[in-house]
């Protein structure tokens, strides 16, 4: 309990620093590229193209999914997924990677996952902007339900941070954790309903029920419901409660491990 408060306090205290460092790092990453920051949009667009070709035209044959054109349905999921994917893997590596830098300075290590999430945000907003433009061009109407974006955005950040602090600590303690996470994330692309609808897949009910407990599915599905006039987020209260419970549990364990072991990070890595 105290650990969670310690970690949260450190985030709030260093909020300004988190954004400044993330912004700077982002600029530094793309500095050596001719197209620079443009890659943040270009990369996802290429992926959208590939998935549209394979799943939109091949798998779904141009049919609608959940009452929306496939391209819109997929782009919402994919823009959220690409962000979560890079944030999940990035946060997991964040402390281990920066060890050389922080080992000789007094630095609040727990903000490193936040910095990573923050530096991925620009790409997310850019991609989501493109998605909305495409959605409007496909006659998706703006409804009052769009304000649910804020709720699901909070869900997403809370989940990524909780998992991030846990993963980052685990990666320092056990290097293999990152490899395991990488493999899991690769499978999750297909099991979280990013590019094909797991809701009307021919799975046994029990398997589907388990898949829908996945927090990533909850977030992606939520964004879709918000933009494509689905139900309000409180209607499906069961998954809502489960999502927050599992996020809190991850944060609890992550914060505890982090605070317990961070003094020994240099010893251990």
């Amino acid at each position, binding site marked *: *309990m*105290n*650990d969670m408060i310690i970690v949260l306090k450190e985030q709030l205290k*260093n909020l*300004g*620093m988190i954004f*400044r*460092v993330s912004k*700077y*790092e982002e600029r*530094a990453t793309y500095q050596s590229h001719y197209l620079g920051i443009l890659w943040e949009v270009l990369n996802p667009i290429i992926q959208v193209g590939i998935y549209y070709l394979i799943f939109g035209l091949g798998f779904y044959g141009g*049919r*609608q999914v*959940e009452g929306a054109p496939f391209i819109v349905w997929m782009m919402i999921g994919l823009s959220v997924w690409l962000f979560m994917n890079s944030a999940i893997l990035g946060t997991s590596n964040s402390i281990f990677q920066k060890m*050389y*830098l*922080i*080992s*000789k*300075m*007094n*630095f609040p290590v727990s903000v490193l996952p936040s910095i990573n999430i923050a530096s991925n945000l620009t790409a997310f907003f850019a991609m989501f902007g493109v998605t909305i433009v495409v959605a409007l061009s496909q006659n998706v109407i703006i409804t009052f339900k769009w304000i649910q974006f804020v709720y699901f955005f909070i869900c997403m950040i809370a989940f990524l941070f909780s998992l991030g602090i846990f993963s980052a600590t685990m990666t320092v*303690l*056990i*290097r293999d954790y990152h490899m395991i996470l990488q493999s899991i994330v690769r499978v999750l692309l297909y099991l979280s309903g990013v590019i094909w609808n797991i*809701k*009307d897949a021919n799975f046994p*009910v*029990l398997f*589907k*029920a*388990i898949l*829908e*407990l996945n927090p990533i599915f909850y977030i992606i*599905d939520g964004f879709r*419901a918000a933009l494509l006039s*689905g*139900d309000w987020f409180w209607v*499906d*209260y*069961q*998954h809502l*409660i*489960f999502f927050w*419970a*599992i996020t*809190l*549990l991850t944060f*609890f*364990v992550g914060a*505890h491990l982090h*605070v*317990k*072991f*961070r*003094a*020994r990070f*240099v*010893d*251990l890595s």
Partner: protein
Amino acid sequence: MKKVKVRARLLTKEFDLFKNRTEQIKSIFALKKDKVPKFWALKGVSFDIYEGEAVGIVGINGSGKSTISNVISKVIPQTSGTLEVNGKVSVIAIGAGLNGRLTGRENIRLKALMMGLTNKQVDQVEEQIIEFADLGAFIDQPVKNYSSGMRSRLGFSIAIHQNPDILIIDEALSVGDQTFYQKCIEKMVEFKNNGKTIIFVSHALGQVEALCDRTIWMHYGDLREDGPTSEVLAHYREFTKKFNALSVAERRKYQQKFKNNQTAFNLGKLDQRLASDNETEDFQIDDKQKKMLLKRTKTGQGLSFFSWIIFLALMAFCIFFGTHSVTSFAHDPNNPTVVAQRKLAVVVKRENKAAKKANSNSWSQNQKINGTNYRIKDMYSFQKGDTMQKIADKYHITFKQLQEANPQVAGRIKLGQILLIPDVQHEKK
């Protein structure tokens, strides 16, 4: 009276000599204890360092100098004993904390931002650092292209401009040239005069003499001597002279003896040593304190009772709710899949109604579509596992004919949807 900046009491540092990662992981989660060989880099060191002091730390390789600097800067935790550090610590070690792929300027900015400076403050301090490092055009080159001297100059400039209260220099000046060294010494003297503290770890005794008024001599994890620089260095020089005069075999034997001592050391032995020397009196450690200091420092806290309850409650809640929503999934009215199915059922119903209506109106008679006569023969309710092709085969018609007869089927066929089966045989006869 001068303020104490660093107060160390009976500091020890034990390193585990793991053979592989598995042993390490086991020890992290406390599954295995005391089977791994140990090495004690510090064997109970006590000292006070005051403000405005420049303290040199000397000693031969492996005597624990760097361990001390790492413990003071909180890079690694001590195993037992207490350490009190009052003020901001900044460490300079060769090439430490520089990212090779970034340029010198970028490194400066990144470091400064990570120290919590705002962009405006960074702009100011950046110029000062660049001027002090004096790297010329190289400041905009990646650090990986720097020579070791340039690296240490950049590192020194960054560290000293962080405005620390305690500056630890870990053998970082040995690679700089004379001009830069002179500049550093000037800066450090200025530092000292401002009441700040410098801890100077070095092999270059000349540098120690020039800068430090007090010196600590570390010897295989023990603090061998602590006193005025001239005195300690005289003894240290005498020792190294004697040591170097030994034959190679004798030297190795000497080293081995001390190394073995460091392996066989434990906190009980420290207790025995304290009984025989006067360290406890010197630092005014009473028995109660001694007992505390001889206990291992726990890294991090365990979970409190309250936290355990929260943890278990969360865990139970997740499991309960998870299983509940899995088991109730099929009939939960709010479940997205069920909702989707319900919506689908409405569509199917609507389309079926339309189909039946069409059937009662026009399909009762023969009808001509695309030059083919159609008459309704049967109605078929789409079942699980069916495909259009299968149904067509069943009634001996072509897929295309079936499709033409059912224009109401838009997109994918849904379960329970009614298909009209045209009678094409009739027309052939």
